[in-house]
Protein backbone atom coordinates (compact mmCIF):
# COMPACT_ATOMS: atom_id res chain seq x y z
CA UNK A 1 0.00 0.00 0.00
CA UNK A 2 0.95 3.60 -0.45
CA UNK A 3 2.72 5.20 2.45
CA UNK A 4 1.16 8.59 1.75
CA UNK A 5 -2.11 8.69 3.63
CA UNK A 6 -5.07 9.86 1.58
CA UNK A 7 -7.19 12.60 3.09
CA UNK A 8 -9.90 10.74 4.98
CA UNK A 9 -12.80 12.21 3.03
CA UNK A 10 -11.36 11.32 -0.38
CA UNK A 11 -10.62 7.77 0.69
CA UNK A 12 -14.13 7.34 2.08
CA UNK A 13 -15.72 8.76 -1.06
CA UNK A 14 -13.65 6.54 -3.33
CA UNK A 15 -14.33 3.37 -1.34
CA UNK A 16 -17.84 2.45 -2.56
CA UNK A 17 -16.92 2.92 -6.20
CA UNK A 18 -13.71 0.93 -5.81
CA UNK A 19 -15.61 -1.79 -3.99
CA UNK A 20 -18.33 -1.90 -6.60
CA UNK A 21 -15.74 -2.24 -9.34
CA UNK A 22 -13.99 -4.92 -7.29
CA UNK A 23 -17.20 -6.93 -6.95
CA UNK A 24 -18.03 -6.59 -10.62
CA UNK A 25 -14.55 -7.72 -11.55
CA UNK A 26 -14.47 -10.69 -9.20
CA UNK A 27 -17.55 -12.20 -10.88
CA UNK A 28 -17.06 -14.05 -14.10
CA UNK A 29 -16.22 -11.16 -16.37
CA UNK A 30 -18.55 -12.51 -19.06
CA UNK A 31 -21.41 -11.22 -16.96
CA UNK A 32 -20.54 -7.58 -17.35
CA UNK A 33 -20.67 -7.20 -21.15
CA UNK A 34 -23.79 -9.39 -21.20
CA UNK A 35 -25.51 -7.05 -18.78
CA UNK A 36 -24.32 -4.01 -20.73
CA UNK A 37 -25.60 -5.54 -23.95
CA UNK A 38 -28.98 -6.40 -22.41
CA UNK A 39 -29.37 -2.90 -20.99
CA UNK A 40 -28.55 -1.31 -24.35
CA UNK A 41 -30.92 -3.60 -26.26
CA UNK A 42 -33.77 -2.96 -23.81
CA UNK A 43 -33.14 0.79 -23.86
CA UNK A 44 -33.06 1.07 -27.65
CA UNK A 45 -36.02 -1.30 -28.09
CA UNK A 46 -38.15 0.90 -25.85
CA UNK A 47 -36.90 4.11 -27.45
CA UNK A 48 -37.44 3.04 -31.06
CA UNK A 49 -39.84 0.50 -32.63
CA UNK A 50 -37.41 0.12 -35.50
CA UNK A 51 -34.47 -1.03 -33.36
CA UNK A 52 -35.49 -4.59 -32.51
CA UNK A 53 -36.29 -5.88 -36.01
CA UNK A 54 -34.56 -8.55 -38.04
CA UNK A 55 -33.66 -5.97 -40.66
CA UNK A 56 -31.90 -3.82 -38.10
CA UNK A 57 -30.16 -6.83 -36.54
CA UNK A 58 -28.70 -7.55 -39.98
CA UNK A 59 -27.73 -3.89 -40.20
CA UNK A 60 -25.81 -4.24 -36.97
CA UNK A 61 -24.18 -7.39 -38.35
CA UNK A 62 -23.20 -5.71 -41.62
CA UNK A 63 -21.87 -2.71 -39.77
CA UNK A 64 -19.75 -4.74 -37.39
CA UNK A 65 -18.33 -7.41 -39.73
CA UNK A 66 -15.06 -5.55 -40.24
CA UNK A 67 -14.87 -4.62 -36.56
CA UNK A 68 -15.31 -8.26 -35.53
CA UNK A 69 -12.55 -9.45 -37.87
CA UNK A 70 -10.18 -6.73 -36.69
CA UNK A 71 -11.09 -7.30 -33.04
CA UNK A 72 -10.35 -11.01 -33.46
CA UNK A 73 -6.96 -10.05 -34.89
CA UNK A 74 -6.43 -7.86 -31.84
CA UNK A 75 -7.54 -10.64 -29.48
CA UNK A 76 -4.89 -13.04 -30.73
CA UNK A 77 -2.09 -10.51 -30.23
CA UNK A 78 -3.43 -9.31 -26.88
CA UNK A 79 -3.59 -12.89 -25.60
CA UNK A 80 0.18 -13.21 -26.09
CA UNK A 81 0.59 -10.01 -24.06
CA UNK A 82 1.41 -7.72 -27.00
CA UNK A 83 -0.75 -5.31 -28.95
CA UNK A 84 -1.20 -4.59 -32.66
CA UNK A 85 -1.93 -0.93 -33.32
CA UNK A 86 -1.28 -1.29 -37.06
CA UNK A 87 -4.65 -2.94 -37.75
CA UNK A 88 -6.31 0.08 -39.41
CA UNK A 89 -3.26 0.55 -41.65
CA UNK A 90 -3.18 -3.12 -42.59
CA UNK A 91 -6.90 -3.10 -43.44
CA UNK A 92 -6.42 0.03 -45.59
CA UNK A 93 -3.38 -1.33 -47.40
CA UNK A 94 -4.83 -4.77 -48.07
CA UNK A 95 -8.14 -3.25 -49.18
CA UNK A 96 -6.31 -1.07 -51.69
CA UNK A 97 -4.27 -4.02 -52.93
CA UNK A 98 -7.42 -6.07 -53.42
CA UNK A 99 -8.99 -3.18 -55.42
CA UNK A 100 -5.84 -2.74 -57.48
CA UNK A 101 -5.52 -6.38 -58.51
CA UNK A 102 -9.13 -7.36 -58.94
CA UNK A 103 -9.53 -6.18 -62.58
CA UNK A 104 -6.03 -7.14 -63.66
CA UNK A 105 -5.67 -10.56 -62.08
CA UNK A 106 -9.14 -11.63 -61.05
CA UNK A 107 -11.01 -11.89 -57.77
CA UNK A 108 -9.22 -14.94 -56.38
CA UNK A 109 -5.73 -13.53 -56.92
CA UNK A 110 -6.79 -10.18 -55.45
CA UNK A 111 -8.20 -11.80 -52.31
CA UNK A 112 -5.21 -14.10 -51.84
CA UNK A 113 -2.81 -11.18 -52.39
CA UNK A 114 -4.63 -8.99 -49.86
CA UNK A 115 -4.56 -11.71 -47.24
CA UNK A 116 -0.94 -12.52 -48.09
CA UNK A 117 0.15 -8.90 -47.74
CA UNK A 118 -1.70 -8.77 -44.42
CA UNK A 119 0.30 -11.80 -43.31
CA UNK A 120 3.55 -10.17 -44.42
CA UNK A 121 2.78 -6.99 -42.49
CA UNK A 122 2.06 -9.17 -39.46
CA UNK A 123 5.30 -11.09 -39.93
CA UNK A 124 7.22 -7.82 -40.15
CA UNK A 125 5.57 -6.64 -36.92
CA UNK A 126 6.36 -9.85 -35.11
CA UNK A 127 9.95 -10.13 -36.32
CA UNK A 128 10.71 -6.49 -35.52
CA UNK A 129 9.31 -6.88 -32.01
CA UNK A 130 11.44 -9.98 -31.46
CA UNK A 131 14.64 -8.95 -33.23
CA UNK A 132 14.85 -5.37 -32.07
CA UNK A 133 13.30 -6.07 -28.66
CA UNK A 134 11.04 -3.03 -29.07
CA UNK A 135 7.63 -3.00 -27.34
CA UNK A 136 4.93 -4.11 -29.76
CA UNK A 137 2.90 -0.93 -29.37
CA UNK A 138 5.80 1.11 -30.80
CA UNK A 139 6.62 -1.27 -33.64
CA UNK A 140 2.99 -1.53 -34.70
CA UNK A 141 2.45 2.22 -34.35
CA UNK A 142 5.32 2.69 -36.79
CA UNK A 143 3.81 0.01 -39.03
CA UNK A 144 0.47 1.86 -38.95
CA UNK A 145 2.21 4.89 -40.43
CA UNK A 146 4.11 2.79 -42.99
CA UNK A 147 1.08 0.85 -44.23
CA UNK A 148 -1.11 3.96 -44.52
CA UNK A 149 1.72 5.68 -46.40
CA UNK A 150 2.12 2.80 -48.86
CA UNK A 151 -1.66 2.61 -49.37
CA UNK A 152 -1.72 6.33 -50.23
CA UNK A 153 1.32 6.09 -52.50
CA UNK A 154 -0.12 3.23 -54.55
CA UNK A 155 -2.69 5.37 -56.37
CA UNK A 156 -1.42 8.92 -55.73
CA UNK A 157 -3.54 9.39 -52.64
CA UNK A 158 -6.78 8.59 -54.46
CA UNK A 159 -9.26 5.75 -53.83
CA UNK A 160 -8.75 2.79 -56.18
CA UNK A 161 -11.77 2.22 -58.46
CA UNK A 162 -12.50 -1.09 -60.16
CA UNK A 163 -15.07 -2.58 -62.54
CA UNK A 164 -15.39 -6.07 -61.06
CA UNK A 165 -18.95 -6.69 -59.76
CA UNK A 166 -18.34 -10.17 -58.37
CA UNK A 167 -16.75 -9.07 -55.09
CA UNK A 168 -19.60 -6.66 -54.32
CA UNK A 169 -22.17 -9.34 -55.16
CA UNK A 170 -20.58 -11.79 -52.76
CA UNK A 171 -19.82 -9.36 -49.92
CA UNK A 172 -23.14 -7.55 -50.09
CA UNK A 173 -25.13 -10.69 -50.94
CA UNK A 174 -26.89 -13.24 -48.80
CA UNK A 175 -26.49 -16.92 -48.04
CA UNK A 176 -29.60 -18.78 -46.85
CA UNK A 177 -31.23 -15.40 -46.29
CA UNK A 178 -28.42 -14.16 -44.05
CA UNK A 179 -25.96 -11.48 -45.20
CA UNK A 180 -22.61 -13.03 -46.18
CA UNK A 181 -20.76 -10.46 -44.13
CA UNK A 182 -22.60 -11.67 -41.05
CA UNK A 183 -21.72 -15.31 -41.72
CA UNK A 184 -18.06 -14.82 -42.65
CA UNK A 185 -16.82 -13.22 -39.39
CA UNK A 186 -18.81 -15.74 -37.35
CA UNK A 187 -17.14 -18.62 -39.19
CA UNK A 188 -13.75 -16.98 -38.57
CA UNK A 189 -14.71 -16.52 -34.92
CA UNK A 190 -15.52 -20.22 -34.62
CA UNK A 191 -12.19 -21.20 -36.17
CA UNK A 192 -10.13 -18.83 -34.01
CA UNK A 193 -11.97 -19.93 -30.86
CA UNK A 194 -11.38 -23.57 -31.70
CA UNK A 195 -7.69 -22.85 -32.30
CA UNK A 196 -7.39 -20.96 -29.03
CA UNK A 197 -8.69 -23.79 -26.88
CA UNK A 198 -8.08 -26.98 -28.79
CA UNK A 199 -4.70 -26.57 -30.45
CA UNK A 200 -1.15 -26.45 -29.20
CA UNK A 201 -0.62 -23.06 -30.82
CA UNK A 202 -3.50 -21.67 -28.77
CA UNK A 203 -2.20 -23.20 -25.56
CA UNK A 204 1.26 -21.77 -26.23
CA UNK A 205 -0.12 -18.30 -26.87
CA UNK A 206 -1.93 -18.29 -23.54
CA UNK A 207 1.22 -19.51 -21.79
CA UNK A 208 3.31 -16.80 -23.46
CA UNK A 209 0.78 -14.15 -22.45
CA UNK A 210 0.79 -15.38 -18.87
CA UNK A 211 4.57 -15.21 -18.65
CA UNK A 212 6.92 -15.43 -21.59
CA UNK A 213 9.98 -16.36 -19.53
CA UNK A 214 8.15 -19.22 -17.83
CA UNK A 215 6.80 -20.50 -21.13
CA UNK A 216 10.25 -20.35 -22.72
CA UNK A 217 11.81 -22.17 -19.76
CA UNK A 218 9.18 -24.89 -20.22
CA UNK A 219 10.31 -25.39 -23.80
CA UNK A 220 7.64 -23.32 -25.57
CA UNK A 221 9.21 -21.77 -28.69
CA UNK A 222 8.06 -18.28 -27.70
CA UNK A 223 9.75 -16.48 -30.59
CA UNK A 224 7.97 -18.56 -33.20
CA UNK A 225 4.53 -18.40 -31.62
CA UNK A 226 4.71 -14.66 -31.00
CA UNK A 227 5.51 -14.10 -34.67
CA UNK A 228 2.69 -16.49 -35.64
CA UNK A 229 0.25 -14.44 -33.53
CA UNK A 230 1.21 -11.26 -35.39
CA UNK A 231 0.95 -13.04 -38.75
CA UNK A 232 -2.53 -14.26 -37.82
CA UNK A 233 -3.48 -10.71 -36.89
CA UNK A 234 -2.26 -9.48 -40.29
CA UNK A 235 -4.12 -12.26 -42.13
CA UNK A 236 -7.40 -11.40 -40.39
CA UNK A 237 -6.85 -7.72 -41.18
CA UNK A 238 -6.26 -8.70 -44.82
CA UNK A 239 -9.60 -10.48 -44.82
CA UNK A 240 -11.16 -7.37 -43.27
CA UNK A 241 -9.55 -5.28 -46.02
CA UNK A 242 -11.26 -7.43 -48.68
CA UNK A 243 -14.62 -7.01 -46.91
CA UNK A 244 -14.17 -3.22 -46.67
CA UNK A 245 -13.35 -2.98 -50.38
CA UNK A 246 -16.35 -5.16 -51.26
CA UNK A 247 -18.71 -3.15 -49.05
CA UNK A 248 -17.55 0.22 -50.37
CA UNK A 249 -16.95 -0.85 -53.95
CA UNK A 250 -13.54 0.80 -54.10
CA UNK A 251 -10.15 0.63 -52.42
CA UNK A 252 -10.65 3.33 -49.80
CA UNK A 253 -7.97 5.23 -47.92
CA UNK A 254 -10.33 5.90 -45.04
CA UNK A 255 -11.46 2.76 -43.25
CA UNK A 256 -12.55 4.79 -40.29
CA UNK A 257 -10.31 6.18 -37.59
CA UNK A 258 -12.42 4.55 -34.90
CA UNK A 259 -11.51 1.04 -36.01
CA UNK A 260 -8.42 0.76 -33.79
CA UNK A 261 -10.03 2.15 -30.65
CA UNK A 262 -13.23 0.19 -31.22
CA UNK A 263 -11.40 -3.07 -31.74
CA UNK A 264 -9.16 -2.75 -28.67
CA UNK A 265 -12.16 -1.64 -26.63
CA UNK A 266 -14.19 -4.62 -27.86
CA UNK A 267 -11.42 -7.03 -26.89
CA UNK A 268 -10.95 -5.56 -23.43
CA UNK A 269 -14.67 -5.20 -22.81
CA UNK A 270 -15.16 -8.86 -23.67
CA UNK A 271 -12.76 -9.72 -20.87
CA UNK A 272 -9.47 -10.34 -22.65
CA UNK A 273 -7.07 -8.38 -20.47
CA UNK A 274 -4.34 -6.21 -21.99
CA UNK A 275 -1.91 -7.86 -19.58
CA UNK A 276 -2.20 -11.04 -21.68
CA UNK A 277 -2.89 -14.71 -21.05
CA UNK A 278 -6.57 -14.50 -20.14
CA UNK A 279 -9.80 -14.13 -22.09
CA UNK A 280 -10.68 -15.53 -25.46
CA UNK A 281 -11.97 -14.86 -28.97
CA UNK A 282 -15.55 -15.83 -28.13
CA UNK A 283 -15.58 -13.07 -25.51
CA UNK A 284 -14.59 -10.51 -28.11
CA UNK A 285 -17.88 -11.12 -29.93
CA UNK A 286 -19.67 -9.69 -26.88
CA UNK A 287 -17.47 -6.60 -26.83
CA UNK A 288 -18.06 -6.06 -30.56
CA UNK A 289 -21.82 -6.41 -30.07
CA UNK A 290 -21.81 -3.84 -27.26
CA UNK A 291 -20.01 -1.30 -29.47
CA UNK A 292 -22.05 -2.13 -32.57
CA UNK A 293 -25.40 -2.00 -30.75
CA UNK A 294 -24.41 1.23 -29.00
CA UNK A 295 -23.45 2.87 -32.31
CA UNK A 296 -26.50 1.58 -34.17
CA UNK A 297 -28.96 2.54 -31.42
CA UNK A 298 -27.55 6.01 -30.92
CA UNK A 299 -27.71 6.50 -34.68
CA UNK A 300 -31.38 5.48 -34.80
CA UNK A 301 -32.18 7.80 -31.91
CA UNK A 302 -30.54 10.61 -33.86
CA UNK A 303 -27.64 11.33 -31.51
CA UNK A 304 -25.11 13.63 -33.11
CA UNK A 305 -21.73 12.19 -34.03
CA UNK A 306 -19.97 14.04 -31.26
CA UNK A 307 -22.46 12.91 -28.61
CA UNK A 308 -22.00 9.35 -29.82
CA UNK A 309 -18.27 9.76 -29.59
CA UNK A 310 -18.43 11.04 -26.01
CA UNK A 311 -20.80 8.30 -24.84
CA UNK A 312 -18.76 5.60 -26.49
CA UNK A 313 -15.62 6.92 -24.80
CA UNK A 314 -17.29 6.85 -21.39
CA UNK A 315 -18.53 3.29 -21.94
CA UNK A 316 -15.05 2.18 -22.98
CA UNK A 317 -13.33 3.72 -19.96
CA UNK A 318 -15.75 2.03 -17.58
CA UNK A 319 -15.43 -1.27 -19.39
CA UNK A 320 -11.66 -1.17 -19.08
CA UNK A 321 -11.87 -0.16 -15.42
CA UNK A 322 -13.86 -3.31 -14.80
CA UNK A 323 -11.68 -5.64 -16.75
CA UNK A 324 -8.07 -4.94 -15.89
CA UNK A 325 -6.31 -6.62 -13.03
CA UNK A 326 -4.59 -3.85 -11.11
CA UNK A 327 -2.52 -6.26 -9.07
CA UNK A 328 -0.46 -6.84 -12.18
CA UNK A 329 0.47 -3.19 -12.43
CA UNK A 330 2.64 -1.74 -9.67
CA UNK A 331 2.49 1.69 -11.21
CA UNK A 332 -0.27 3.10 -13.37
CA UNK A 333 1.23 5.04 -16.26
Amino acid at each position, binding site marked *: MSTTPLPQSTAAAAAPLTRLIGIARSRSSLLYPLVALAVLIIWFSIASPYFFTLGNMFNIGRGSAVLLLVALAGTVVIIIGSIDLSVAGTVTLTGVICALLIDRAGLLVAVVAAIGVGGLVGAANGLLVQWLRIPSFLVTLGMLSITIGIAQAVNNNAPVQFRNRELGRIVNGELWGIPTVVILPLVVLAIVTFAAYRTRAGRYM*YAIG*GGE*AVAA*ASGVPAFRYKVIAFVLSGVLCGLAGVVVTGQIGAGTLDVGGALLLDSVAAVVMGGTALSGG*VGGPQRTLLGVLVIAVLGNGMGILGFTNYTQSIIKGVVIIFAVALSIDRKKYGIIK
Partner: protein
Amino acid sequence: MDAKDTPLVELRNIHVAFGGVHAVEDVSLKLARGEVLGLVGHNGAGKTTLIKVLSGAVRRDSGDILVNGASAHINNPRDAKHYGIETIYQTLALADNIDASANLFLGRELRSRWGTLDDAAMEAATRQVMGRLNPHFRRFKEPVKALSGGQRQSVAIARAVHFNARILIMDEPTAALGPAETKQVADLVKQLKREGIGIFLISHDIHDVFDLAGRVAVMKNGRLIGTAMTSDVTKDEVLGMIISGALPAGARRPEARVQ
Protein backbone atom coordinates in the same frame (compact mmCIF):
# COMPACT_ATOMS: atom_id res chain seq x y z
CA MET B 1 36.35 -46.33 -17.70
CA ASP B 2 33.64 -48.53 -16.24
CA ALA B 3 30.11 -47.39 -17.13
CA LYS B 4 29.28 -47.31 -13.43
CA ASP B 5 31.97 -44.71 -12.81
CA THR B 6 30.90 -42.46 -15.66
CA PRO B 7 29.34 -39.36 -14.13
CA LEU B 8 25.70 -38.79 -14.96
CA VAL B 9 26.56 -35.20 -15.83
CA GLU B 10 29.87 -33.53 -16.20
CA LEU B 11 30.33 -29.80 -16.67
CA ARG B 12 33.77 -28.91 -18.03
CA ASN B 13 35.34 -25.45 -17.89
CA ILE B 14 32.06 -23.57 -18.18
CA HIS B 15 32.39 -19.84 -18.85
CA VAL B 16 29.51 -17.35 -19.01
CA ALA B 17 29.93 -13.58 -19.27
CA PHE B 18 27.17 -10.98 -19.30
CA GLY B 19 28.59 -7.91 -20.97
CA GLY B 20 32.03 -7.66 -19.38
CA VAL B 21 31.05 -9.39 -16.15
CA HIS B 22 32.12 -12.99 -15.64
CA ALA B 23 29.09 -14.66 -14.12
CA VAL B 24 30.64 -18.10 -14.28
CA GLU B 25 34.37 -18.61 -14.71
CA ASP B 26 35.94 -21.93 -15.57
CA VAL B 27 33.68 -24.14 -13.48
CA SER B 28 33.90 -27.92 -13.72
CA LEU B 29 31.56 -30.22 -11.78
CA LYS B 30 30.43 -33.85 -11.82
CA LEU B 31 27.19 -35.41 -10.65
CA ALA B 32 26.69 -39.16 -10.13
CA ARG B 33 23.52 -41.25 -10.34
CA GLY B 34 21.41 -41.01 -7.21
CA GLU B 35 23.55 -38.19 -5.90
CA VAL B 36 22.21 -34.97 -4.44
CA LEU B 37 24.74 -32.20 -4.93
CA GLY B 38 24.08 -29.03 -3.01
CA LEU B 39 25.22 -25.92 -4.83
CA VAL B 40 25.73 -23.07 -2.40
CA GLY B 41 27.06 -19.53 -2.39
CA HIS B 42 25.99 -15.93 -1.98
CA ASN B 43 23.53 -14.19 -4.25
CA GLY B 44 25.42 -13.46 -7.44
CA ALA B 45 27.96 -16.20 -6.83
CA GLY B 46 26.98 -17.75 -10.16
CA LYS B 47 25.05 -20.83 -8.99
CA THR B 48 21.84 -20.03 -10.81
CA THR B 49 23.67 -19.00 -13.97
CA LEU B 50 25.70 -22.21 -13.94
CA ILE B 51 22.60 -24.31 -13.54
CA LYS B 52 20.79 -22.39 -16.25
CA VAL B 53 23.57 -23.37 -18.62
CA LEU B 54 22.77 -27.00 -17.89
CA SER B 55 19.01 -26.45 -18.24
CA GLY B 56 19.48 -24.58 -21.51
CA ALA B 57 18.09 -21.26 -20.29
CA VAL B 58 21.46 -19.48 -20.56
CA ARG B 59 24.01 -20.01 -23.30
CA ARG B 60 27.55 -20.72 -22.23
CA ASP B 61 30.39 -18.80 -23.86
CA SER B 62 32.66 -21.82 -23.66
CA GLY B 63 32.96 -25.20 -21.97
CA ASP B 64 31.42 -28.62 -22.47
CA ILE B 65 28.52 -30.56 -21.04
CA LEU B 66 28.71 -34.34 -20.94
CA VAL B 67 25.75 -36.56 -20.14
CA ASN B 68 26.67 -40.18 -19.41
CA GLY B 69 30.13 -39.45 -20.74
CA ALA B 70 28.91 -38.28 -24.15
CA SER B 71 29.04 -34.69 -25.30
CA ALA B 72 25.59 -33.07 -25.03
CA HIS B 73 24.40 -30.26 -27.27
CA ILE B 74 22.31 -28.02 -25.06
CA ASN B 75 21.34 -24.66 -26.46
CA ASN B 76 17.77 -24.25 -25.22
CA PRO B 77 15.41 -25.77 -22.62
CA ARG B 78 14.03 -28.19 -25.20
CA ASP B 79 17.49 -29.66 -25.81
CA ALA B 80 18.04 -30.10 -22.09
CA LYS B 81 14.76 -31.96 -21.67
CA HIS B 82 15.80 -34.23 -24.51
CA TYR B 83 18.73 -35.35 -22.30
CA GLY B 84 16.42 -35.97 -19.35
CA ILE B 85 17.39 -32.74 -17.61
CA GLU B 86 14.38 -31.21 -15.85
CA THR B 87 14.46 -27.96 -13.94
CA ILE B 88 12.30 -26.63 -11.16
CA TYR B 89 12.97 -22.93 -11.06
CA GLN B 90 12.39 -20.79 -8.03
CA THR B 91 10.49 -18.16 -10.00
CA LEU B 92 9.94 -19.67 -13.41
CA ALA B 93 8.35 -22.91 -12.33
CA LEU B 94 4.79 -22.59 -13.58
CA ALA B 95 2.66 -20.58 -15.97
CA ASP B 96 0.21 -18.92 -13.58
CA ASN B 97 -2.72 -18.48 -15.92
CA ILE B 98 -3.21 -22.11 -16.95
CA ASP B 99 -4.20 -25.18 -14.93
CA ALA B 100 -2.10 -27.98 -13.45
CA SER B 101 -2.29 -30.38 -16.37
CA ALA B 102 -1.64 -27.63 -18.93
CA ASN B 103 1.47 -26.80 -16.90
CA LEU B 104 2.53 -30.41 -16.54
CA PHE B 105 2.49 -30.85 -20.30
CA LEU B 106 3.51 -27.33 -21.31
CA GLY B 107 5.83 -27.64 -24.29
CA ARG B 108 5.08 -31.38 -24.59
CA GLU B 109 1.32 -31.52 -25.05
CA LEU B 110 -0.44 -34.76 -25.79
CA ARG B 111 -2.39 -34.54 -29.00
CA SER B 112 -5.22 -36.47 -30.53
CA ARG B 113 -5.20 -38.12 -33.92
CA TRP B 114 -6.43 -34.85 -35.40
CA GLY B 115 -3.56 -32.85 -33.97
CA THR B 116 -5.77 -31.14 -31.41
CA LEU B 117 -4.96 -31.05 -27.70
CA ASP B 118 -5.94 -34.20 -25.85
CA ASP B 119 -6.97 -32.53 -22.59
CA ALA B 120 -8.69 -35.65 -21.27
CA ALA B 121 -5.53 -37.74 -21.55
CA MET B 122 -3.39 -34.96 -20.09
CA GLU B 123 -5.67 -34.54 -17.13
CA ALA B 124 -5.81 -38.29 -16.51
CA ALA B 125 -2.01 -38.48 -16.49
CA THR B 126 -1.83 -35.46 -14.20
CA ARG B 127 -4.27 -37.05 -11.75
CA GLN B 128 -2.18 -40.19 -11.75
CA VAL B 129 1.18 -38.56 -11.04
CA MET B 130 -0.30 -36.11 -8.54
CA GLY B 131 -1.97 -39.03 -6.78
CA ARG B 132 1.51 -40.43 -6.19
CA LEU B 133 3.11 -37.18 -5.05
CA ASN B 134 0.34 -35.24 -3.33
CA PRO B 135 -2.80 -37.36 -2.86
CA HIS B 136 -4.72 -34.46 -1.33
CA PHE B 137 -4.43 -32.36 -4.46
CA ARG B 138 -7.86 -31.67 -5.96
CA ARG B 139 -7.65 -28.37 -7.81
CA PHE B 140 -7.07 -29.67 -11.30
CA LYS B 141 -9.29 -27.19 -13.10
CA GLU B 142 -8.02 -23.92 -11.67
CA PRO B 143 -5.22 -21.73 -12.95
CA VAL B 144 -2.20 -22.55 -10.78
CA LYS B 145 -2.16 -18.92 -9.63
CA ALA B 146 -4.88 -19.99 -7.18
CA LEU B 147 -2.75 -22.75 -5.59
CA SER B 148 -0.68 -22.63 -2.40
CA GLY B 149 3.12 -22.64 -2.48
CA GLY B 150 3.29 -26.32 -1.61
CA GLN B 151 0.70 -27.28 -4.19
CA ARG B 152 2.55 -25.32 -6.84
CA GLN B 153 5.84 -26.99 -5.91
CA SER B 154 4.22 -30.41 -6.13
CA VAL B 155 2.89 -29.59 -9.60
CA ALA B 156 6.38 -28.48 -10.64
CA ILE B 157 7.95 -31.66 -9.28
CA ALA B 158 5.19 -33.77 -10.83
CA ARG B 159 6.13 -32.37 -14.20
CA ALA B 160 9.74 -33.46 -13.82
CA VAL B 161 8.77 -36.88 -12.47
CA HIS B 162 6.19 -37.56 -15.14
CA PHE B 163 8.71 -37.01 -17.90
CA ASN B 164 11.21 -39.42 -16.33
CA ALA B 165 13.83 -36.87 -15.39
CA ARG B 166 17.27 -38.42 -14.97
CA ILE B 167 18.83 -35.18 -13.86
CA LEU B 168 16.79 -32.81 -11.76
CA ILE B 169 17.72 -29.23 -11.03
CA MET B 170 15.96 -27.67 -8.05
CA ASP B 171 16.45 -23.95 -7.51
CA GLU B 172 15.50 -23.04 -3.93
CA PRO B 173 12.76 -25.70 -3.87
CA THR B 174 11.68 -24.96 -0.31
CA ALA B 175 12.16 -21.19 -0.18
CA ALA B 176 8.46 -20.35 -0.31
CA LEU B 177 7.21 -23.28 1.76
CA GLY B 178 6.07 -23.88 5.33
CA PRO B 179 7.66 -26.61 7.52
CA ALA B 180 5.19 -29.37 6.62
CA GLU B 181 5.49 -28.66 2.91
CA THR B 182 9.28 -28.47 3.20
CA LYS B 183 9.30 -31.94 4.72
CA GLN B 184 7.10 -33.19 1.90
CA VAL B 185 9.61 -31.89 -0.64
CA ALA B 186 12.48 -33.41 1.37
CA ASP B 187 10.80 -36.83 1.33
CA LEU B 188 10.27 -36.48 -2.36
CA VAL B 189 13.95 -35.68 -2.93
CA LYS B 190 14.93 -38.83 -1.03
CA GLN B 191 12.54 -40.93 -3.09
CA LEU B 192 13.88 -39.50 -6.36
CA LYS B 193 17.40 -40.19 -5.16
CA ARG B 194 16.57 -43.83 -4.52
CA GLU B 195 15.29 -44.06 -8.09
CA GLY B 196 18.79 -43.11 -9.26
CA ILE B 197 18.00 -39.57 -10.32
CA GLY B 198 20.85 -37.10 -9.94
CA ILE B 199 19.82 -33.86 -8.33
CA PHE B 200 21.41 -30.42 -8.30
CA LEU B 201 20.02 -28.59 -5.30
CA ILE B 202 20.54 -24.85 -5.18
CA SER B 203 19.86 -23.37 -1.79
CA HIS B 204 20.62 -20.51 0.53
CA ASP B 205 19.70 -22.67 3.45
CA ILE B 206 22.75 -24.56 4.66
CA HIS B 207 20.58 -26.75 6.93
CA ASP B 208 18.46 -27.87 3.99
CA VAL B 209 21.59 -28.70 2.06
CA PHE B 210 23.06 -30.78 4.88
CA ASP B 211 19.74 -32.61 5.30
CA LEU B 212 19.37 -33.53 1.67
CA ALA B 213 22.72 -33.41 -0.13
CA GLY B 214 25.54 -35.92 0.08
CA ARG B 215 28.02 -33.43 -1.29
CA VAL B 216 28.25 -29.67 -1.54
CA ALA B 217 29.88 -27.45 -4.14
CA VAL B 218 30.65 -23.89 -3.07
CA MET B 219 30.73 -20.99 -5.52
CA LYS B 220 32.00 -17.47 -4.96
CA ASN B 221 32.31 -14.66 -7.50
CA GLY B 222 31.59 -16.98 -10.41
CA ARG B 223 34.28 -19.49 -9.46
CA LEU B 224 34.07 -22.90 -7.84
CA ILE B 225 35.83 -22.72 -4.45
CA GLY B 226 35.70 -26.44 -3.86
CA THR B 227 33.53 -29.45 -3.12
CA ALA B 228 33.11 -31.52 0.03
CA MET B 229 31.18 -34.57 1.24
CA THR B 230 28.69 -33.29 3.80
CA SER B 231 29.97 -36.03 6.13
CA ASP B 232 33.53 -34.67 6.00
CA VAL B 233 32.86 -31.02 6.86
CA THR B 234 30.81 -29.00 9.33
CA LYS B 235 28.20 -26.40 8.45
CA ASP B 236 30.53 -23.72 9.81
CA GLU B 237 33.32 -24.87 7.53
CA VAL B 238 31.00 -24.66 4.54
CA LEU B 239 29.90 -21.19 5.64
CA GLY B 240 33.58 -20.29 5.80
CA MET B 241 33.98 -21.45 2.21
CA ILE B 242 30.99 -19.36 1.13
CA ILE B 243 32.12 -16.21 2.92
CA SER B 244 35.91 -16.18 2.70
CA GLY B 245 36.65 -18.88 0.17
CA ALA B 246 38.78 -20.74 2.76
CA LEU B 247 39.17 -24.45 2.05
CA PRO B 248 38.79 -26.73 5.12
CA ALA B 249 40.70 -30.02 5.49
CA GLY B 250 37.71 -32.17 4.46
CA ALA B 251 37.08 -30.30 1.19
CA ARG B 252 38.56 -30.78 -2.24
CA ARG B 253 39.98 -28.16 -4.50
CA PRO B 254 38.37 -27.90 -7.97
CA GLU B 255 40.05 -30.28 -10.38
CA ALA B 256 42.79 -28.94 -12.57
CA ARG B 257 41.66 -27.60 -15.92
CA VAL B 258 40.65 -30.39 -18.28
CA GLN B 259 42.52 -30.00 -21.52
